[in-house]
Each structure stands twice: as C-alpha cells, then as structure tokens.
C-alpha cells in the first residue's frame, strides 16, 4: 500500500495523511490512484488513445460494447485495430484478417471509417492544445505533450492536469486514453503502454535505469528486428547489457548510433517535443483487392490518387515540385520512381502527368498490390501554377480544376468525375 499522498483519478480527490492508508478513495470509492514521489516534477507526457478505431465504433454503436470488435476489412485486409475483448483471443494489429477470424470467429468486423476517426482525432488534439501549445502528434491517435511551465496557467501540476484531461476525454468524446508521464519522450512513451487501457503511469528520474534494465533492446525506438538481431549477435539483448557497456566501445562498434543507444539505455533522451513538425510531403496510396498488372487500370487508380493529393494541397494552401510514384509488387517488393524540379504545382492534371510518365516507364506486366503517389519539395500555394514563357495550357487547367472543385464543394465529391476514371470498361458503369 503506498504511503505517499495520491490523486484519485476518478474524482481527482487529493488524498493525504490518514486517508492514504485506505484502499479506496475516501471521496468516491475508486481504487484508481496515482502516486509517485516525482509526480509533480515531471512534465513530458505521451497520450495514446486505447484501441482507437474500435473504441470509436463501440461508442457509436453501443450494441458492440460487449463483443469482440475488429476494425479492418477487404478480402485480404489486415487488422487495423482490435478491441480489448478481441485481444484476449490473441487478435493483434496488422494480423491478416483470416488469421484473426480463426482466433476469434465470433468477432464483429467493422470496415474502417477513416474520415470519422480523423474527426475524433482532431477533437482529441483540440483538447490537448488547451493544455499546451507544445503538442507533437505521432499519428491520428497519439501525441507527445510538453507541459513544462503550465502550472501557473492551469493552477495544477502536469500530472493533475493530465488526470483531468483523461476524464474530460471520456466525458466529452466518449473514448479512453492511456497516459505516460516522465521527464523525456522515450520514457513517457514506454510509460503510456504500461497499464493500458485507461492507464496512467509515471516513470521518474530515480527509477529510470532500473526500470529499463530488464527490458529488451527492442523497446528503444529505431531498434527493429534487424537491429535487434545484430545487437543479439553481439550479445546485447537487454537494456541492462547496454548499461554495462562503455560509451566509447559502443561508438566504436555502431558509430553515432552507439552513443544514442548508450544514452537511451540510461534514460537520457534530449529530444524536444516540437509542435512544428513541418509537412515534408503529401501522399496517397491504395492497396488493391486483387493484384493488378494492367496499365490502364493502374493509370485510372493513379488518377484518383492524384486528385486526392491535389485536394489536400489545395486545402493546405501548398504546392510541390517533386512527384513520387510508388508500386508494391505481389511479392512485396517496393518500387519508387520520382521526378523533381517541376514548376510548383497543386493541380491534379500536373501531378498526374508526371506520375503517369513514371508509371508508364515502370510497368512491365508485373502484378502489383499497391500504388501510391506523393508530392514533395513543398512551396506556398501562391507560387503554384503561374505558368512560364511557353506554357500554353496551365491557365486552362487551372480554370478547369477550379470549376470542378466548386462543383464538388456544392454537390459532393462525385458530382463530377473525370471520364478517365471510367476507362474503356463501359459495361460496368451502364
């Protein structure tokens, strides 16, 4: 039984003195207590939504609440998210759907609704931004927060603030989050994983080394299977193995990476939480239901992706000068081709022209399972599509797309569709 003061995570009651001895919160009777000697000294947090997609679906359809739910789909889809009930059957993210359904045949499979998740993700983000401007999103459902120096503003320590925040997410948005609080990003992220779901874990400076010692080196970010195998062949399996080693020795073996490993093994991570993660590029890709080799079909799908990229460029008032086209073969071999140095553009027509050229050169009858297109080397929108000395078509292309965009804004995305998308396969659309 902890003897220090604690915070009740349900009613936010601060228990101290004799109350501490009681197993449950004297105010509300909840056992969810938060106590740590460094509780009020830590300010880097990692917030992770619990089984995000599945939780959102359960929120919107309460009949799913007590059933195993898997978000994912398609004939050869993989599990995007499995709810905690499904996880007890051994279903995991990224597991092929057929395997997941073998493990848990009674699971309810819900196709993902990315638009909805993005909306909920934005709501969560908005609440985060009320705590601090230093929010660094890692994905749609997780982010780092730096709460240093917010105590006076909010009249509470970061730990109390986060406890309030997680309650608010549950009440206002109807999903749950897990929180990790520490003094650096590395440990905050590990902490958020410790007692999911609805978790709140704290790792302080004092226990960092001891906490890390028995963890496999794979918990270090950037150490994947390959790096793990390489380290294992040198006899390094646990972080304690790294802690025992000399920094100079690690640098000799692994270069600058050695120094990074040495530091992280000691819980030293100087990366800052930075809100301004600049957009480097915008891309869209799609995995096919069945592999495709046909040039016309690929081109048609590519056009749709170019429209998506163009739409996002226009929404974010950006343009780009580099186009990358990406294909993945049925054997999972990845092929990327790119073209740089284009005049800054945000037009579907221009992105498609470049991407199609790259596609045409790349296809050779191989079957592909995925195609993607991206734009990079981003510039502000006002530099885009201004034409040049001999550009005879840009003004027309620009006017056409502006007209199409206006129609779509009023009557929906499908109000007007390029004839190219239909291809020569007319019967299907009759």
């Amino acid at each position, binding site marked *: 039984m902890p003897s220090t003061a604690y915070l009740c995570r349900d009613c936010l009651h601060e228990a101290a003195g004799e109350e501490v001895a009681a197993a449950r919160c004297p105010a509300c009777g909840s056992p969810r207590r938060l106590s740590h000697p460094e509780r009020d000294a830590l300010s880097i947090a990692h917030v992770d939504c619990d089984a995000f997609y599945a939780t959102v679906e359960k929120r919107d359809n309460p009949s799913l609440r007590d059933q195993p739910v898997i978000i994912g789909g398609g004939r050869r889809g993989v599990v995007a998210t499995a709810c905690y009930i499904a996880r007890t059957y051994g279903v995991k993210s990224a597991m092929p759907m057929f395997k997941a359904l073998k493990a848990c045949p009674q699971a309810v499979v819900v196709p993902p609704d990315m638009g909805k998740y993005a909306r909920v993700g934005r709501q969560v983000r908005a609440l985060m931004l009320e705590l601090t401007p230093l929010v660094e999103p890692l994905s749609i459902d997780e982010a780092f927060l730096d709460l240093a120096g917010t105590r006076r503003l909010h009249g509470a320590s970061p730990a109390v603030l986060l406890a309030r925040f997680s309650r608010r997410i549950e009440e206002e948005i109807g999903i749950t989050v897990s929180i990790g609080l520490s003094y650096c990003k590395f440990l905050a992220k590990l902490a958020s994983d410790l007692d999911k779901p609805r978790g709140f874990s704290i790792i302080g400076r004092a226990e960092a080394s001891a906490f890390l010692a028995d963890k496999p080196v794979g918990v270090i970010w950037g150490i994947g299977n390959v790096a793990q195998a390489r380290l294992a062949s040198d006899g390094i399996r646990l972080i304690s193995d790294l802690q025992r080693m000399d920094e100079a020795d690690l640098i000799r073996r692994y270069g600058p990476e050695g120094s990074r490993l040495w530091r992280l093994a000691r819980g030293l991570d100087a990366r800052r939480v930075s809100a301004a993660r600049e957009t480097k590029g915008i891309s869209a890709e799609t995995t096919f239901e069945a592999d495709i080799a046909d040039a016309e079909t690929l081109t048609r799908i590519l056009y749709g992706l170019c429209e998506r990229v163009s739409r996002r460029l226009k929404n974010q008032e950006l343009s780009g000068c580099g186009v990358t086209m990406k294909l993945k073969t049925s054997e999972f071999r990845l092929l990327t081709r790119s073209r740089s140095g284009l005049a800054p553009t945000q037009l579907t027509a221009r992105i498609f022209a470049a991407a199609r050229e790259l596609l045409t050169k790349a296809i050779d009858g191989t079957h592909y399972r995925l195609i993607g297109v991206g734009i990079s080397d981003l510039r502000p929108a006002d530099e885009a599509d201004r034409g*040049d*000395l*001999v*550009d005879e078509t840009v003004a027309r292309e620009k006017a056409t797309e502006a007209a199409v965009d206006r129609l779509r804004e009023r009557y929906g995305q499908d109000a007007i569709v390029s004839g190219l998308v239909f291809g020569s396969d007319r019967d299907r659309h009759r």
Partner: protein
Amino acid sequence: MKVTLERATLLKSLGHVHRVVERRNTIPILSNVLLHAQGRSLMLKATDLDLEVLETLPADVQQGGGTTLPAHVLYDIVRKLPDGAQVSLDSAGDTGQLVLRSGRSRFALQSLPESDFPDLNVGDLSHHFSLAAGDLKKLIDKTQFAISTEETRYYLNGIYIHTLEVEGRAMLRAVATDGHRLARVEIVAPAGAADMPGVILPRKAVAEVQKLIEGLDKEVAVDMSTTKVRFTLGDVTLTSKLIDGTFPDYARVIPNGNDKRLVVERDSFAAAVDRVSTISSERGRAVKLSIVDGKLTLSVNNPDSGSATEELEVDYDAQPLDIGFNARYLLDITEQLDSDTALLKLADPGSPTLLQDRDGSAALYVLMPMRV
C-alpha cells in the same frame, strides 16, 4: 580484320565516338563501337540509336573487315597505353575475340559481330548547305544553356533551328527555351538553307556537335530531312534524329512593348550579381534589382544566412522599379553577351524582360522574373 595504327590518332577518334555510347545499356551491342578496316583507313562508329558518330582515320590495314568492341573499355585501354605507341588490332579467326597488342601489352577482348551493329536508317537527306564552323558554334553556344531538360515538354529538349526572312534577308535562326528563359540568335542564312525545314536538334546532339566543333576551322556541311540531320565536321560525321514535335510559337513570348531601358556595364553587373548571390539558398536563387534614376541596387535576402546588397551606377531614367530574377539565369545570359554594355528592356515586376547587347547584335534573350 588486322590493322595497325598510332595510339594518338586512335585515342583522339575514340574520344570523339565513345561519348555517344551510354554507360549503361540493356542491349549489349549498343555498348560497342564498330571498327571497320578498308583500303588505307579504319572507320569507327558508335550509336545510341538516336545519334551516330562516325570517324575515319588513316591506318595500316593488313587485312580488311570489321568487328565491334566495348567502347568504354577500348577507350580506357588506349588511353592508358604509353605515348607514341603503335596499336595493332587483330580479329583473325572466328573466336569472337579481338587481340589488341601494343608494345608488351596484349589484350584479348570479347567482340560482337559487325552485322549485329544497328543502323540509323538515315534515308534520303533532302536539304544541303554548309556554314562556317564559327557560325554554327555561335548558334549553338548562345542558345544551348536555355534548352529544357523537362521530359513532359519534350519539344523543348533541343534547339529549334529554322530560316525566315528578316527585313528582306533570309536568316538562319536558333531558339531554345525552358520556359524560364529563352535564347534567340541568328546569322545570315547560308546558300541553300533558305528552304530547309524547321527542325529541333536534340540536346545530346547539340552537346556532341559543340565538342566536335571545338578548334575546327572549316566549313561544316549540313544535310537534313524533316526527321534526321547530318553534320560533317572535318573527319567526323555526326548523324542525329530530330525531335518529332512542334516548337512553340516563340515570337509571342518576345516582349516588344517593354519601354523601361536599363543599360549596365556587363562585366561589373555580372560580377555584382555573382557576389550578392553567394549567400542565396540553393532553393531560391532570387536576386532583387531595385532601379531608380541612374542607380541599380542588387540585393539578396536569405532568411537562413543573411543578406547582401551592392550598388551599381547605371543608365536608367524611367519609373523606379523593383524586379527579381534567378541569379544563375542572369549570369548564364550575361556570359553569352558580346559587347561591354548590356541592355535590359523591362516592363513590370511580373512580366518577361528582354536582354541583349546594347548595340543590338543578333542575339536576344528573354527572362521570366521571380517574385521577391
């Protein structure tokens, strides 16, 4: 085939032809150079299927015939042989090998049969004229930098060469543009050229002609059809396909209403542009020209590294104007100007500017401004 010749002559010719051969080829024969011995000479030929370079050089032929050898390997071997060496090439026997001997060196090289070597199928070249090497050099040098590398507008990947009548005289004109700048230069059309078709000479052929013409002091014979062109430059013959496309109507692009005249001393202008652009970033190479009565201020502002300005005394009496250009493009153009003073005809910060020699020589350049 058995032939002996001097290393120096062979090296020079291989130097001419091997450049045409792409370093990486999917068709093996295209990596090779064709050698054919006949009479008292050896003929070398290389091609990339768009461009073919052929050169004939004197040699001591013991046995006629031909074969093909990897061009870059052969060039490297001959290059490494000592000065003044004699080289003998012997493809005797049907071994598919050629033996190269020089001094105490001996190389046995895999060869491919002469009959496999591709031909450009030049067909009938209908138009013929010749011009001084210096004139051809001028047409190429002054426009080459403006050729586009952008593949989507393939018809800009070369120099547009055509004839037209200017003030009652037939002129031969070369134009190149990448959309940001345009270069136009003309000479009096040589006899026989007046009715030639307008053609787009691809950049690789342009680059090869430019190298082959270096130091040449002769007439260059030009033979062309609507699809192919052949230049005879001394002992070397270069044949190229032409770009099959329509060059845009460039006359529309050349501004004729620009009434703000800025006269600068060319060298000091170029040097100042070069100096201030030192601090510009790789991405935005913009230099700003602020012009008021008799004074030009060049400035570069790079948020990452700082700023630079330089003032120049100039001849200008129109409305004050601020306009930005890509520094690299400005330098490319000033480098091609001939006279000491350059004339810029400006309109406004958003419109193309005209650059030329003050005395109004035959070369004319158009430059798109940049936003600054």
